[in-house]
Protein backbone atom coordinates (compact mmCIF):
# COMPACT_ATOMS: atom_id res chain seq x y z
CA UNK A 1 0.00 0.00 0.00
CA UNK A 2 1.02 3.60 -0.50
CA UNK A 3 2.12 5.88 2.29
CA UNK A 4 3.18 9.49 2.39
CA UNK A 5 5.51 11.01 4.94
CA UNK A 6 6.25 14.58 5.87
CA UNK A 7 8.83 15.98 8.20
CA UNK A 8 9.28 17.69 10.42
CA UNK A 9 5.84 17.59 12.02
CA UNK A 10 6.29 20.99 13.62
CA UNK A 11 8.81 23.74 13.13
CA UNK A 12 9.41 27.12 14.73
CA UNK A 13 11.76 29.36 12.77
CA UNK A 14 12.78 33.02 13.08
CA UNK A 15 12.09 35.52 10.34
CA UNK A 16 14.87 35.51 7.75
CA UNK A 17 15.97 31.94 8.38
CA UNK A 18 15.95 29.24 5.65
CA UNK A 19 13.37 26.49 5.34
CA UNK A 20 13.35 22.95 4.07
CA UNK A 21 10.31 20.69 4.34
CA UNK A 22 10.44 17.20 2.96
CA UNK A 23 7.79 14.88 1.60
CA UNK A 24 8.29 11.30 0.46
CA UNK A 25 5.89 8.77 -0.98
CA UNK A 26 6.23 5.01 -0.78
CA UNK A 27 4.52 2.23 -2.69
CA UNK A 28 3.92 4.00 -5.99
CA UNK A 29 5.91 5.15 -8.98
CA UNK A 30 5.74 8.35 -11.05
CA UNK A 31 3.24 10.08 -8.81
CA UNK A 32 2.08 13.63 -9.24
CA UNK A 33 3.14 15.58 -6.16
CA UNK A 34 1.62 18.69 -4.64
CA UNK A 35 2.41 21.24 -1.92
CA UNK A 36 -0.45 23.10 -0.26
CA UNK A 37 -0.58 25.72 2.46
CA UNK A 38 -3.48 26.02 4.85
CA UNK A 39 -3.70 29.24 6.83
CA UNK A 40 -5.51 29.14 10.17
CA UNK A 41 -9.22 28.58 9.68
CA UNK A 42 -8.98 28.69 5.92
CA UNK A 43 -9.00 26.36 2.97
CA UNK A 44 -6.15 24.90 1.00
CA UNK A 45 -3.98 26.93 -1.34
CA UNK A 46 -2.03 25.01 -3.97
CA UNK A 47 1.56 26.24 -3.98
CA UNK A 48 3.40 23.88 -6.33
CA UNK A 49 2.85 20.69 -8.24
CA UNK A 50 5.11 18.30 -10.09
CA UNK A 51 4.34 15.71 -12.75
CA UNK A 52 7.89 14.33 -12.87
CA UNK A 53 11.46 14.61 -11.64
CA UNK A 54 12.74 18.14 -12.01
CA UNK A 55 9.37 19.39 -13.29
CA UNK A 56 7.91 22.02 -10.98
CA UNK A 57 4.95 24.30 -11.60
CA UNK A 58 4.23 27.23 -9.35
CA UNK A 59 0.67 28.32 -8.75
CA UNK A 60 1.25 31.55 -6.86
CA UNK A 61 4.17 33.99 -6.69
CA UNK A 62 5.74 33.82 -3.28
CA UNK A 63 8.77 33.49 -1.10
CA UNK A 64 8.91 29.71 -1.49
CA UNK A 65 10.35 27.27 -4.00
CA UNK A 66 9.99 23.54 -4.60
CA UNK A 67 12.19 20.81 -5.98
CA UNK A 68 11.79 17.17 -6.89
CA UNK A 69 15.22 15.57 -6.86
CA UNK A 70 13.87 12.01 -6.93
CA UNK A 71 10.71 10.40 -8.23
CA UNK A 72 9.03 10.14 -4.84
CA UNK A 73 10.62 13.08 -3.02
CA UNK A 74 9.26 16.61 -2.97
CA UNK A 75 10.94 19.44 -1.09
CA UNK A 76 9.61 22.86 -0.16
CA UNK A 77 12.22 25.52 0.52
CA UNK A 78 12.76 29.14 1.32
CA UNK A 79 15.96 31.16 1.56
CA UNK A 80 14.47 33.71 3.97
CA UNK A 81 11.25 33.12 5.83
CA UNK A 82 8.61 35.82 6.29
CA UNK A 83 6.02 36.03 9.04
CA UNK A 84 3.36 35.41 6.39
CA UNK A 85 4.90 32.00 5.64
CA UNK A 86 3.44 30.63 8.87
CA UNK A 87 0.82 27.96 8.32
CA UNK A 88 0.10 24.29 7.93
CA UNK A 89 1.87 22.75 4.95
CA UNK A 90 0.44 19.68 3.34
CA UNK A 91 1.99 17.42 0.75
CA UNK A 92 -0.19 15.20 -1.44
CA UNK A 93 0.23 12.71 -4.25
CA UNK A 94 -1.95 11.36 -7.02
CA UNK A 95 -1.46 8.41 -9.32
CA UNK A 96 -1.30 8.47 -13.08
CA UNK A 97 -4.64 6.76 -13.46
CA UNK A 98 -6.86 9.04 -11.44
CA UNK A 99 -7.06 12.52 -9.96
CA UNK A 100 -7.81 11.68 -6.35
CA UNK A 101 -5.13 13.04 -4.08
CA UNK A 102 -3.82 11.49 -0.89
CA UNK A 103 -2.44 13.73 1.80
CA UNK A 104 0.41 13.52 4.24
CA UNK A 105 0.08 14.39 7.94
CA UNK A 106 1.29 17.97 7.43
CA UNK A 107 3.93 20.28 8.91
CA UNK A 108 2.98 23.11 11.24
CA UNK A 109 5.33 26.03 10.57
CA UNK A 110 5.46 29.02 12.88
CA UNK A 111 7.64 31.94 11.87
CA UNK A 112 8.51 34.20 14.81
Amino acid at each position, binding site marked *: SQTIHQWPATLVQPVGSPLSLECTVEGTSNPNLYWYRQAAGRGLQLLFYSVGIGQISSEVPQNLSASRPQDRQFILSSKKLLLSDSGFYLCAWSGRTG*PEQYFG*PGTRLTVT
Partner: protein
Amino acid sequence: AQSVTQPDIHITVSEGASLELRCNYSYGATPYLFWYVQSPGQGLQLLLKYFSGDTLVQGIKGFEAEFKRSQSSFNLRKPSVHWSDAAEYFCAVGGSEDSSYKLIFGSGTRLLVRP
Protein backbone atom coordinates in the same frame (compact mmCIF):
# COMPACT_ATOMS: atom_id res chain seq x y z
CA ALA B 1 -13.92 30.49 -13.70
CA GLN B 2 -13.44 27.25 -11.83
CA SER B 3 -14.49 27.36 -8.22
CA VAL B 4 -16.01 25.46 -5.32
CA THR B 5 -18.40 27.03 -2.85
CA GLN B 6 -19.24 25.61 0.55
CA PRO B 7 -21.81 28.09 1.80
CA ASP B 8 -21.83 26.92 5.42
CA ILE B 9 -18.75 27.84 7.45
CA HIS B 10 -20.05 26.08 10.57
CA ILE B 11 -22.78 23.51 11.11
CA THR B 12 -23.88 22.11 14.47
CA VAL B 13 -25.95 18.95 14.72
CA SER B 14 -26.95 16.69 17.57
CA GLU B 15 -25.48 13.24 17.79
CA GLY B 16 -27.77 10.81 16.00
CA ALA B 17 -29.26 13.49 13.76
CA SER B 18 -28.91 13.51 10.00
CA LEU B 19 -26.37 15.69 8.24
CA GLU B 20 -26.12 17.42 4.90
CA LEU B 21 -23.16 19.56 3.89
CA ARG B 22 -23.57 21.64 0.79
CA CYS B 23 -21.14 22.01 -2.08
CA ASN B 24 -21.59 23.88 -5.35
CA TYR B 25 -19.01 23.97 -8.08
CA SER B 26 -18.22 25.79 -11.28
CA TYR B 27 -16.16 23.81 -13.76
CA GLY B 28 -15.90 24.09 -17.52
CA ALA B 29 -15.39 20.43 -18.32
CA THR B 30 -16.67 17.16 -16.94
CA PRO B 31 -15.86 17.37 -13.24
CA TYR B 32 -14.35 14.89 -10.89
CA LEU B 33 -15.74 15.59 -7.41
CA PHE B 34 -14.41 14.74 -3.97
CA TRP B 35 -15.13 15.12 -0.30
CA TYR B 36 -12.31 15.14 2.23
CA VAL B 37 -12.36 15.26 6.03
CA GLN B 38 -9.74 16.85 8.25
CA SER B 39 -9.40 16.44 11.99
CA PRO B 40 -7.55 19.21 13.87
CA GLY B 41 -3.83 19.20 13.17
CA GLN B 42 -4.06 16.34 10.71
CA GLY B 43 -3.91 15.82 6.99
CA LEU B 44 -6.96 15.35 4.78
CA GLN B 45 -8.62 11.98 4.35
CA LEU B 46 -10.58 11.10 1.23
CA LEU B 47 -14.20 10.29 2.10
CA LEU B 48 -15.57 9.65 -1.36
CA LYS B 49 -15.23 10.52 -5.02
CA TYR B 50 -17.38 10.85 -8.11
CA PHE B 51 -16.02 10.34 -11.60
CA SER B 52 -18.98 9.11 -13.63
CA GLY B 53 -21.91 6.71 -13.55
CA ASP B 54 -24.29 6.41 -10.63
CA THR B 55 -24.82 9.89 -9.23
CA LEU B 56 -25.17 8.63 -5.67
CA VAL B 57 -21.78 7.56 -4.35
CA GLN B 58 -20.98 5.81 -1.12
CA GLY B 59 -17.90 6.55 0.91
CA ILE B 60 -16.20 5.58 4.10
CA LYS B 61 -17.58 6.12 7.60
CA GLY B 62 -21.19 5.88 6.40
CA PHE B 63 -21.08 9.01 4.22
CA GLU B 64 -22.68 9.40 0.83
CA ALA B 65 -22.90 12.19 -1.71
CA GLU B 66 -25.15 12.92 -4.64
CA PHE B 67 -24.02 14.56 -7.87
CA LYS B 68 -26.64 16.82 -9.42
CA ARG B 69 -25.38 18.18 -12.71
CA SER B 70 -28.35 20.51 -13.22
CA GLN B 71 -27.66 22.20 -9.90
CA SER B 72 -23.85 21.97 -10.06
CA SER B 73 -23.97 20.44 -6.61
CA PHE B 74 -22.32 17.57 -4.79
CA ASN B 75 -23.80 17.53 -1.30
CA LEU B 76 -22.49 15.23 1.41
CA ARG B 77 -24.92 13.34 3.64
CA LYS B 78 -24.95 11.03 6.60
CA PRO B 79 -28.14 9.61 8.13
CA SER B 80 -26.93 9.53 11.73
CA VAL B 81 -23.99 11.58 12.96
CA HIS B 82 -21.55 10.27 15.57
CA TRP B 83 -19.53 12.47 17.92
CA SER B 84 -16.38 11.30 16.13
CA ASP B 85 -17.60 12.97 12.92
CA ALA B 86 -16.77 16.39 14.34
CA ALA B 87 -14.16 17.74 11.95
CA GLU B 88 -13.71 20.02 8.96
CA TYR B 89 -15.04 18.89 5.61
CA PHE B 90 -13.74 20.00 2.24
CA CYS B 91 -15.32 19.61 -1.16
CA ALA B 92 -13.03 19.59 -4.19
CA VAL B 93 -13.35 19.53 -7.98
CA GLY B 94 -10.88 18.57 -10.66
CA GLY B 95 -10.64 17.18 -14.15
CA SER B 96 -8.49 15.32 -16.61
CA GLU B 97 -7.79 18.06 -19.11
CA ASP B 98 -4.09 17.66 -18.48
CA SER B 99 -1.89 15.30 -16.53
CA SER B 100 -1.51 17.56 -13.51
CA TYR B 101 -4.82 16.48 -11.94
CA LYS B 102 -4.98 19.67 -9.92
CA LEU B 103 -7.88 20.05 -7.53
CA ILE B 104 -9.77 23.16 -6.49
CA PHE B 105 -10.91 23.09 -2.88
CA GLY B 106 -13.76 24.83 -1.16
CA SER B 107 -13.10 26.82 1.99
CA GLY B 108 -14.45 24.06 4.21
CA THR B 109 -17.34 23.47 6.61
CA ARG B 110 -16.63 22.86 10.27
CA LEU B 111 -18.98 20.30 11.79
CA LEU B 112 -19.72 20.45 15.50
CA VAL B 113 -21.63 17.59 17.14
CA ARG B 114 -23.75 18.17 20.25
CA PRO B 115 -23.92 15.25 22.68
